[in-house]
């Protein structure tokens, strides 16, 4: 029997364990001490303790490899985050004769380096946001940057070549800022990534974030599973994702999807990946990057295509060819995923870790999918991310999907930590969201959605008194 080591935690570990167990494989969990009570440890067939962590053991390639050897794993699924896009981890697996469920370490290396990735894409005529190569050091580089800005116009983004996840990016508005910021950005990049290379990119103002799920086997077959829109973000972290994109012009969507397939082919991509684009208001689209991992939001694509992406990932890793061709893939209806995080949206989305989930009651019914890992009585570790559960709903029309989502949010009861649910309840009632009209500026331009009254409704106040009378068995404010 095949054994899959799941090198991750939280909901994505559970997602992979489920797929592995459905295929008749054994799933091996790894965990750090704070995750001793975690659900992924409980449902896995075996679990291996890595260390006290936090986080550093999940990130420790040697420890994970040791766990893989110890459990005699045949393959490793990295999930997302942690080691998922670390080419050294993929390389370590390759060297140890273990199947890494994802693209090869070479592909990860190439696509992880923004400059190399842009070179590959340029070679394949993939449209990209106008940008420079790595700027040469000193005044010459600054002069080149200023000339480039004169050609394409401000604002510009100055990015660290080795950066990622929103780090090492700064916005430049004019020449004098350019002169000041380049040396600072270099110093910062050097400190943060041990690589002081920076480059420029034109800023696309208030774009939509549209991405394409691609799947490629080792035999040269590449298909796409349509688009997703992940424009609703806060601080470059996605909150709400939908499939397919709400762009109505089919020719644009087709062009984006075909471009994504071309990009995958150009980079010799294998397994599942995501090609991200920015789409401006004039429907120009630009390649941004390829994520070489399973993504949080893969669920919406699964809902509209009916294809189990993780199952497909496992099969491809074990050498199977794609079972479907592009023409077999149909996009049916709409899906929306909301990340229910233990965060206080009113307090700048401050994480609510350390709190116990006193009540957990989830919605169900037609078109509803939950990917979570918390349970009633579970105390959320403070040391990991705040995602509790992904609520994904599927509907025939966009309106039906939004209605279903609203119903689910209303019926979702999580007592203990504050969550993003009350904010989402405001969001589903926002006319722009109901129209499917949103871009990456959505949260900034809809800040009023955070004005919901959570604790101080009259009934909440009264209920508090009633709870106290019940607890004390008399009303000490009246006796």
């Amino acid at each position, binding site marked *: 029997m095949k054994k899959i080591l799941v090198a991750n935690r939280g909901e994505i570990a559970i997602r992979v364990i489920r797929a592995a167990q459905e295929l008749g494989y054994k799933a091996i969990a790894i965990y750090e001490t704070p995750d001793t009570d975690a659900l992924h440890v409980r449902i896995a067939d075996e679990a291996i303790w890595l260390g006290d962590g936090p986080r550093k053991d999940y990130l420790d390639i040697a420890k994970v490899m040791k766990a893989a050897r110890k459990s005699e794993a045949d393959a490793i699924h990295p999930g997302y985050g942690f080691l998922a896009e670390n080419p050294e981890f993929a390389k370590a697996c390759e060297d140890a004769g273990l199947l890494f469920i994802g693209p090869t370490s070479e592909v990860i290396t190439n696509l992880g380096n923004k400059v190399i990735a842009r070179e590959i894409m340029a070679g394949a005529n993939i449209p990209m946001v106008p940008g420079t190569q790595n700027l040469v050091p000193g005044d010459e580089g600054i002069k080149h940057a200023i000339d480039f800005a004169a050609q394409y116009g401000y604002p510009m983004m100055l990015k660290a070549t080795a950066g990622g996840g929103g780090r090492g990016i700064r916005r430049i508005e004019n020449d004098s800022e350019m002169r000041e910021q380049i040396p600072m950005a270099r110093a910062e990049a050097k400190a943060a990534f041990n690589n002081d290379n920076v480059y420029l990119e034109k800023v696309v103002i208030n774009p939509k974030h549209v991405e394409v799920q691609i799947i490629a086997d080792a035999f040269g077959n590449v298909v796409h599973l349509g688009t997703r829109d992940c424009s609703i973000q806060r601080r470059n972290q996605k909150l709400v994702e939908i499939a397919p994109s709400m762009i109505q012009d089919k020719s644009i969507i087709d062009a984006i999807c075909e471009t994504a397939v071309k990009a995958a082919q150009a980079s010799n991509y294998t397994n599942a990946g995501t090609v991200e684009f920015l789409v401006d208001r004039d429907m120009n689209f630009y390649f941004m990057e390829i994520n070489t991992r399973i993504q949080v939001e893969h669920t919406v694509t699964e809902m509209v295509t009916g294809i189990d992406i993780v199952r497909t990932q496992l099969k491809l890793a074990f050498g199977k060819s794609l079972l479907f061709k592009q023409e077999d893939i149909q996009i049916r209806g709409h899906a929306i995923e909301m990340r229910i995080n233990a965060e206080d949206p009113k307090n700048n989305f401050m994480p609510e870790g350390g709190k116990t989930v006193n009540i957990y009651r989830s919605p169900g019914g037609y078109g509803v999918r939950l990917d979570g890992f918390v349970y009633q009585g579970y105390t959320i570790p403070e040391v990991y991310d705040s995602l509790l559960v992904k609520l994904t709903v599927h509907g025939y029309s966009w309106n039906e999907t939004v209605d279903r989502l609203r119903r689910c949010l209303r019926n979702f009861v999580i007592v203990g930590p504050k969550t993003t649910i009350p904010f989402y309840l405001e969001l589903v009632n926002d006319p722009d969201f109901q129209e499917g009209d949103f871009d990456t500026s959505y949260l900034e331009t809809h800040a009023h959605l955070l004005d919901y009254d959570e604790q101080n409704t009259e009934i909440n106040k009264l209920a508090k008194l009633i709870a106290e009378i019940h607890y004390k068995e*008399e009303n000490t*404010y009246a006796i």
Partner: protein
Amino acid sequence: MERIVHGMTPKEALQILRQADGYYLTNTARDLSQSDFKNRILLHTDLLAAESRENAQYFSLEITGGASVHVDILRKQVDPFLKLELLREKMPTTMFQTLCRGVNLFGYRPYPQNVIRFAVREFAKYVDVWRVFDFMNHVPNMQAVFEEVQLADKILEPSICFSTGPEHTDEFYVGKVQEILDVTGEDIILCIKNHGGLGTPKRIGELVAAIKQKYPELVIHYHGHNTDGNDIGRITAAVISGAAIVDASDHAFTGYYGPPPLLSVIHTLNDYGKTAVGLNEDAVIESSEVLRNERDHYEYFESQFKGFSPTVQIHKLPGGAMGSSFEQAVKGNFLEQMPTILHDELPKVQIELGNWWSVTPGSQILWTTAVTNVLEKDRYGNPSGDLKNLLLGKYGPFPFHRPADWIYEKVFGASWKKILEEEGGVEDIDDMDIDKERETLTERLGHPPTEQQLVTYLQHPNDAVNFFKFEEEFGKTYVLPPSIFLRRGGYKLGESLMFKDHYGKEHVIEIGPKQIDEKGEWSIYLNVDHQERNYTFMEEAKEAAAAAGPQLSKKEIEDLSKAGDMRATFSCNVCEIAIKEDDEVAVGDKLAVVEAMKMQTPVLSQVAGTVVEIHAKVGDALKAGDKILKIITEVE
């Protein structure tokens, strides 16, 4: 037959009253609540009865004043102004009546003139009829209220407090009426305030007749209590002798110490050919049908002692103080002393202190003095601050005779004459800087107060702030019926609580399980409008008990105090800290003033030394044995 309604000028109302063929009724719901339910009848209940009470067409509904303003914020958690506003919505025509303690307003001791005038102006926006009294029948104590009520063009009802004894003659009371008319003019209603339900029907009939003989045009309102079970007799005699208005209340809630049932008054007087003008008997019955179901929820607040108390003629406690006296006796564990206190000591103290009127705040002085005299077995040996003030004449001159010299000597020591000379006389209270108080309140609330909030605050500063904060935390809780608000023993698992909030929205709360975890944290689960919620509470009782340590005996507390470790000797609130840290104090110096049972008592130093630590602060509620402050004695 013209009805008297809200909005009429005093002149219009008085004209109708003077020409009326028959008598009018005031529903004294407030006095009923105060006398028989420790003032706890909730606005929710009054709102239920509002429609039928409006339809009953009373002369007035007495619904505010007395101690109720304080209890509204302290124990009912309702804004006394909002209460009137909401009742007015449901009762557009009925006049609202209050009971005002003159210079003591709705509190227990004198307020500055500018506070009194400010408070009357604000309340006069809601209150049509102002019954005003002073426990010494000292007219100047009521003058500021008189003036403001008349300025606001509301009906002024000055009272003569009534009692019995050789000094309490018709001549005396007729003289008092003249004193009042001298300052108010003719356009008033005169109240005979029989707060204890004293005297016989014959005596009350004579008094009314004597006043009517001297002032035939004067409209008289007789107010009594049914403590001895015979107030209907007195009411009947009063009306036959010419009283135009009398007090009673809804039979579904009548008890032992408050007003008698309205219907019984109506039926009795009918037989004497006296008709209650405009009264709708069916509506009176309907009110009680509505109220009857609510009474069970108030059981805890009813007197522990059932039955009428005809011995009130001996001890003279006012109806409003009966229930609380027995409650104190139970809580203070001196129930078996009650016959001695009520039937021997209290009448004796009453005579010794001047045989004036046992009504707030005088009744509290008499009661506390009698209780202390009996419990301490040392008559006048532990005088309260209020007793001292009384003896110094700060509340007004003694109407009949001054207490004997030996009492002064016992209370003030050998130099009592000097003290009396230097400190005696009616206290002139300086005006308060109201703007400064507004600033202080703004600071305490975190936002500027409304004028109404300021009025409430000026009378009861700490309790008002607590109430405002309660409201911010728990909302407008008057919407909760007594079955919810006053529930004892917790709710039943699965019970559904339904109510409308202040804004009119319907809610349902279902009671879920109540669990404790190993750390002593309780979880209360409620289903609030179909949303599960959970509320956690730490076992406070356990925590507090552990922190408090073993309870000290009275002897231990005294010993500590003698060593400079001043402790509270009984449960009390701190009103004043008279010294600062590092102050030098001598034996007998005033360190602090505490208040219990509405009486202030000074805490005197029992040692000479230096104040090193002050534990208590103004507003603190202390239990017996709690630390107040510490004095280090001088090293010899």
